[in-house]
């Protein structure tokens, strides 16, 4: 270190006011006063080592750490690197009482060790106000490491002046400029312009920090968004700019064309696996601006099929506002189906050639096709186009991106009959796929589907039978004879037959006898399907329960499968309670778990089983504790255990959070008592499991839950906004059906 500037600090002092600071021209030396030699029984070397050990182990130190400050300062200065780092952390832990250590800690801001500098910054921030003056002096230190660390520390304490930030934004060292970006991110609107200019910093690391800064400091979107859009054109920075734009949500809609045009932008940071930042950003930004529609249409024929998919998805999000893109989408879809076929044929004889992307091209064409529906909402036009597309595709088309069929109204459904009645096998299968998605709404197509179920073509017949199952009980009478016939002909296995009958809720003496016999089938999956079918269709609950339990005891059926089937009889069939109590002691974890969960569904009727349940509150597995708490709440109305389990689950890892969200959702309206957990999770920055959270709010469905959904539907984040909007629509549809 050059020594043209001198800083002398008296280390042992009770407050910063008594520290003598002498600052000369341009460099820094910090002379630490010698520690007094007066013996102190509390600051023996053993105590210092015990303190360091406590810091390393994150244990509580059972003494007065402040007494050891001089020893710690000595270690910071003269200890080996690992010991010094711990001593720095120990001083930070003493907080403002360690003010006398500020000069020593300031020296460590020039350490060559990144972790040492980082620890010193943490300690100076923890000491607080008394670090500020010396740190401000160090903003002019010769050492760039020291300057960067000082900016970092002062920035964290919100003690960086705008003038200093402006000056240091032009510092020669990139670490200083990066620290300035971080400090600007905490400065609100005042910091935005400078952050935007740092996006052009020649050092990528600084520009990335500027993008991050604009991601967290969103106080001036009108200024920041155009600059971030510009930054997308800088190849290595594009991912960071798009990630920042994602947090502006729908306000960043003008960024959509740039994001797609520049695809791929680069891997999302800190993510194991390939997820391009463009995909993530577009999810949060949502539909593009109408002014960009024409430009987006030019990307529909992009040579990279991933860019085609992004363009199709973006246009689809516009809904009928994107209607003028329909012809371009149709043309692009047909061309892409043909391109896919061409590539497939080119590589037919080279099975493992990595250049064969025909499958992904086909998916791109499916996205383009689905988008035709989303921008038109014209069922006749869409189905007519689909017929043409099927010829180009030479294969059934699977539309689930998202499925147009989900949005078909009862009036739209009839148009699909053209596909089902078409002589083209691919059209028939595509039409049956539509029926599967529309479920009960496809009831007007029942006759056409029944005709296909009679088909001599086994694949069509099987698919049509599953489609009848999807339509459900309203198709039962017409479907049952054909389903039985196909089972007898061997088109369906007993397991498939049982599953179809479950969905149709069809019951006859013949099917009951078949399923009762099937409980003892050697094939476990067949026995399971028969148990489910019996429980779903039986009118003699007690007899059915006894048969299923007997099959479980005979081990032709797993207990877990038995519990799953028997859930259909709960809460009506209380004779199941002793069996469930028994299974709560099962050696198998998931059997135990499912038995506890099923018990809760009985509500107060299961009160005698509470003591057997309560022992599971101390189980070491969080899943068991959570399920037990939920069942106790259902049985006794006691929310305390569930409240406690939910609190720890939401504080814990991702896996537990998903379980917690599902648990609240399973309670339906009763989950309202735990709504605050969902709201907190939804408002957490970087929130995860948005769809699960919204689904849970929908499942609760109370006025309070609806209010949360309504507020969420106004979010700038398209993921939140769109999911909440769909959930509200579903709730209103359900209300309407209830009124009808």
């Amino acid at each position, binding site marked *: 270190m050059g020594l043209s500037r001198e800083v002398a600090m008296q280390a042992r002092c009770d407050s910063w006011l008594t520290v003598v600071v002498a600052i000369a021209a341009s460099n820094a030396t910090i002379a630490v006063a010698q520690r007094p030699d007066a013996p102190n029984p509390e600051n023996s070397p053993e105590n210092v080592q015990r303190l360091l050990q406590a810091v390393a182990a994150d244990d509580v130190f059972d003494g007065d750490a402040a007494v050891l400050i001089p020893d710690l300062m000595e270690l910071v200065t003269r200890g080996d690197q690992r010991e010094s780092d711990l001593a720095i952390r120990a001083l930070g832990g003493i907080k403002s009482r360690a003010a006398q250590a500020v000069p020593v800690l300031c020296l460590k801001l020039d350490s060559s060790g990144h972790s040492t500098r980082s620890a010193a910054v943490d300690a100076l921030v923890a000491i607080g106000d008394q670090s500020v003056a010396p740190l401000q002096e160090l903003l002019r230190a010769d050492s760039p490491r020291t300057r960067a660390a000082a900016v970092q520390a002062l920035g964290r304490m919100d003690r960086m002046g705008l003038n200093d930030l402006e000056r240091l934004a032009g510092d020669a060292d990139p670490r200083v400029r990066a620290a300035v970006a971080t400090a600007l991110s905490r400065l609100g609107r005042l910091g935005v312009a400078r952050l935007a200019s740092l996006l052009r910093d020649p050092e990528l690391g600084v520009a*990335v920090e500027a993008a991050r800064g604009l991601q967290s400091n969103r106080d001036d979107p009108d200024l920041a968004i155009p600059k971030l859009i510009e930054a997308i054109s800088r190849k290595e920075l594009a991912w960071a700019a798009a990630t920042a734009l994602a947090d502006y949500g729908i306000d960043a809609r003008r960024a959509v064309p740039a994001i797609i045009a520049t695809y791929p932008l680069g*891997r999302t940071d800190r993510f194991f696996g390939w997820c391009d930042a463009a995909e993530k950003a577009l999810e949060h930004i949502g539909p593009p601006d109408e002014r960009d529609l024409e430009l987006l249409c030019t990307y529909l024929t992009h040579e990279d099929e991933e860019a085609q998919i992004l363009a199709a998805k973006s246009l689809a999000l516009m809904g009928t506002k994107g209607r003028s893109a329909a012809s371009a989408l149709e043309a692009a879809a047909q061309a892409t189906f043909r391109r896919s076929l061409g590539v497939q044929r080119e590589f037919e004889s080279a099975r493992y050639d990595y250049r064969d992307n025909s499958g992904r091209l086909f998916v791109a064409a499916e996205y383009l096709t689905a988008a035709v529906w989303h921008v038109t909402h014209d069922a006749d036009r869409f189905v007519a186009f689909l017929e043409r597309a099927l010829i180009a595709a030479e294969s059934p088309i699977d539309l689930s991106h998202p499925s147009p069929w989900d949005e078909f109204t009862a009036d739209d459904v009839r148009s699909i009959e053209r596909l089902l009645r078409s002589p083209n096998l691919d059209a028939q299968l595509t039409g049956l796929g539509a029926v599967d998605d529309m479920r009960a709404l496809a009831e007007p197509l029942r006759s056409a589907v029944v005709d296909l179920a009679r088909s001599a073509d086994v694949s069509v017949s099987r698919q049509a039978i599953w489609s009848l199952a999807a339509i459900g009980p309203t198709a039962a009478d017409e479907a049952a004879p054909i389903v039985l016939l196909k089972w007898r002909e061997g088109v369906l296995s007993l397991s498939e037959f049982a599953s179809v009958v479950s969905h149709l809720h069809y019951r006859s003496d013949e099917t009951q006898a078949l399923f009762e016999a099937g409980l003892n089938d050697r094939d476990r999956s067949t026995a399971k399907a028969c148990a489910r079918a019996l429980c779903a269709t039986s009118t003699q609950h007690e007899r059915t329960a006894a048969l299923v339990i007997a099959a479980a005891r005979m081990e032709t059926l797993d207990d877990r499968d038995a519990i799953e089937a028997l859930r259909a009889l709960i809460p009506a069939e209380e004779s199941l309670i002793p069996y469930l109590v028994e299974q709560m002691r099962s050696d198998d974890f998931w059997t135990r778990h499912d038995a506890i969960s099923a018990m809760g569904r009985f509500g107060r009727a299961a009160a005698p089983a509470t003591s057997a349940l309560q022992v599971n509150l101390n189980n070491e597995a969080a899943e068991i504790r959570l399920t037990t708490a939920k069942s106790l709440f259902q049985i006794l109305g006691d929310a305390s255990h569930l409240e406690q389990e939910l609190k720890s689950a939401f504080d814990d890892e991702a896996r537990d959070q998903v379980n917690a969200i599902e648990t609240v959702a399973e309670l339906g309206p009763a989950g309202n008592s735990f709504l605050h957990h969902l709201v907190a999770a939804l408002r957490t920055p970087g929130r995860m499991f948005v769809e699960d959270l919204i689904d849970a709010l929908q499942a609760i469905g109370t006025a309070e839950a609806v209010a949360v959904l309504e507020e969420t539907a106004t979010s700038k984040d398209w993921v939140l906004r769109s999911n909440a909007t769909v959930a509200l629509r579903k709730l209103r549809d359900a209300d309407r059906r209830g009124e009808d």
Partner: protein
Amino acid sequence: MFRISLCNASGIILLLTSAADIGDVGAEDVQVSATSAGSSWHWTPDEWVYTEEYEEIQGYAQRPDDDVLQSMTVEWQPPELDALGNFCTVRGRLSVPGNGAEGRRPVDWFQGVTVYMAKTPGSKPDWSAGMNQVDTLDDTTLVSTAGEFAAVIDVRKTQHDRTLPEPFQFGLALAQHTITSKSNQQVVWDSKAPAMAATVQMQTVPAAGRLSRELELINRASGWPFQHPNGVDLIRAVNALQRLGKERALATLEEYAEMTSGIGYFEEQEIVFWIVRTLFEPIRLDDRIPRPLIAVWLDDEELPPSARWPLNPMAVVDDVPFMLGHQVGMGGVPEPPAWQIEWARRHGVVRDAPLKPAMSPLLAAEVILGSHQFRQLDEYARDEATRSVRAQAYAMAAGLLPPITTERLDDTEEEIQWRNLVEESAVQEIRWDAGREEFVGKPR
């Protein structure tokens, strides 16, 4: 076009293609395939045996009798080195006398072979009763229906002078085939298999291509720490790259990663992870270099922040680098080095100065092993790291310290040996010589 697809037990599919003349079959492809159904490996310093079970062997000619096998000859092609000069690919074509007017015809039945290569240039090991691992290297392979084979041998294990073309003896031994059913065979490659006399020949291994100094240093460091524990090679590579600055250093690392992405290379790419951790630091003080998701592990996730290792699984003490992590088994695909390079480009700055160790490696090891943070690791991690860190420290100063025994020692003996070495390192005043970029001591 012949295509040979070999599926091994773990589902990896290898495709070999050869442009063989298939005569009257015309344009129609002939599918040649064999599926591996499992393998076993037996090794001692004296011998090795590799056994593989093959199923669904299709498209090969019928296996001939022993007389035909004995008449096999090989037409060698000149050996080639890869761009880094580490692996020698040796190819050849096996043939047998043809029928009648036909001269020779390629070996077109399912046949395994072992390629032998002498370790010393010009030497002629006797392979009449198989190979000796002291003087010979090997690679096992299968012959295509065009009679062609290719073997890849790590010439870093030979005495090849990278700067010169040198003659090495090569030979070919046949694997033993047992036909277990119509389309299944067991193939046994065995170090005791004699090389066929007619195949033993001197071939010239070329000089390695010229590399930049930085690439050469990275290549030399590439076995650190698990193949060779001497961290001095790592220090030299880091220092050479440090002088290049960020962009050129990253471009060099990318070039190295690309050069080691081919067949034969595996753990060599890990050096990129260790160099990035030593050469770069996060541009932000509150950031950390992400832990590499590869089969090297130091478990500190459950430890309090102050006990964690910021360069996990490494540690650098006073500019002396050490690996604390140990190798583990893992499933799935390891993180590619490109991701660490990407991290460095996005979030890293090159260290301010070259590494200049400020203490002897043995004392640096003592700092780590005696630290409170080290004591927080679990017992297994501590045991593994203690052995490894001591070995690395010794390797960095081996020439300055007395030789250590290669015999297995119990814990007490190991401890005594280590204490003696630490004392000796103090006596020797071992220190870093920045000019020579090595540790030096008092003249003996």
